[in-house]
């Protein structure tokens, strides 16, 4: 199987936020919390990424309340998120060299 392409920061955090089902605005707040206030995501960026991940089957529509749509992560999305997490962990581990050289 071909290796998964690296995710953008927006994709990674949206999938993280959707470990708990949520709608657009709720996701934006959760992403801010998860990133310790570091990441502010615009609604256009959020909606664009949601549409793309929905097409790819990483997330799924679970409910509609008026115009608000609630999404949740799918199994494929969870697998992709885990693969990305592993990749980032490996990169961070490799980066330890920097600390050793620094000493």
């Amino acid at each position, binding site marked *: 199987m071909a290796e998964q392409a690296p995710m*953008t920061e927006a994709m990674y955090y949206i999938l993280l936020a959707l470990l708990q089902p949520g*709608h*657009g605005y709720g996701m*934006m707040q959760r992403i801010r919390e998860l990133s310790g206030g570091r*990441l502010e995501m*615009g609604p*256009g*960026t959020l909606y664009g990424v949601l549409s793309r991940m929905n097409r790819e089957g990483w997330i799924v529509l679970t409910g509609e309340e008026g*115009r608000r749509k609630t999404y949740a992560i799918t199994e494929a999305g969870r697998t992709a998120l885990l693969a990305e997490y592993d990749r980032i962990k490996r990169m961070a581990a490799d980066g330890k060299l920097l600390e050793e050289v620094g000493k």
Partner: protein
Amino acid sequence: MNRKYKFHPGEYELGENEKFYSDMEAKGWRLVKRGRYLSRFKPVEPSNARYRIEVYTPPFLEDRTLPEGQIAVYEDCGWEYVADYSFLHIFRAPEGSDAPEFYTDPAQQAATLKKVRRDLWWSIALSAIMLGLFALPFGRSAAGHIKRAVQLPTLYAFYVLWLVWAVWQLLWGTWKINRIYYRLKKGRPMDHAPKGNRVLHKILNQGLLGLSLLCLLLTVGQLIITRSDDLPLQPDGPYIVLSDLGYEGERGTLFYQDRESGITHTCSLLSDYWEVFEIIDRPGDHQAWMYQYVYRLRFPGMADKLARALMEDSVFARDADSYHKVEAPGLDEAWATDGLELVAVKGELVVYIECMMDTYDNFDPQVICAALADRWAAE
């Protein structure tokens, strides 16, 4: 005044539109509706509202309305959906609102413009095809264009100005949208209040549009003052009648067209123009008939060119070479074919004549030229 209409920047000028609507609200006018050329505003207390535009280009023939889910996310963030036109969807955030910018990732916003750019190239190609098809009926050669341009110059000017305006619109749009696209691709966020001098563009854009509409109005005016009447027995303009050529008879009807004698007169910016048709019944079941297209030009320097065009665009003669020069005392120049056609010039007067006197053999250019010289000497 409870509403106001204003011309807005073009649809490809995203930042300029955002600034335009913010400036209008600062002056006390809030956007209500956007049309093709004009936006409608209502009076409000002046405030520093922010306006942002979302570009939405669904696949061909699909619903162009912005997805409800997308509107809901934007509204949850503090944006109010105000108006839309074509691929533009306009949102407003009131003064003091902390509504976040639509895109935190410029590259992703650049992706929303991809289809707009592609569609623009299609528009350019389609316009070129449409203009080509539109130009086809204007004649088989430049001669046809010259002839009709003298008769209806403002219609031609409208066509040319509108063509230039349409091309300018497309080129300007291409330039603007590409600038935004490459700026975003480089990771620089959208400029929501671009400075740039738009005076030249405004003059060109509104000037060309205004002039082309003026030309259209003048064309309508010319059509309104165009008069068609019965042909008088004695000419009341710089044209001749069959009796001037020695052919007398009762006015009749052209047997194969059910057409009767008549005259049409019109005035354009380039000429006074008479289109005359006369037919009389003659002894022995014969008929004599004559078509005349007479131009009194406002610029006599055009006479030679028009005469040449009339010969090129003749009904029967193949081209101008089918004509030979005729000795024509009292006229500047005259040319005739071996058949039924003649073109003559004197000063600002130019005429094309096509006639048949009982039989084909009686066509005598000298007699026609002499009658024209007499008539035009009296003008």
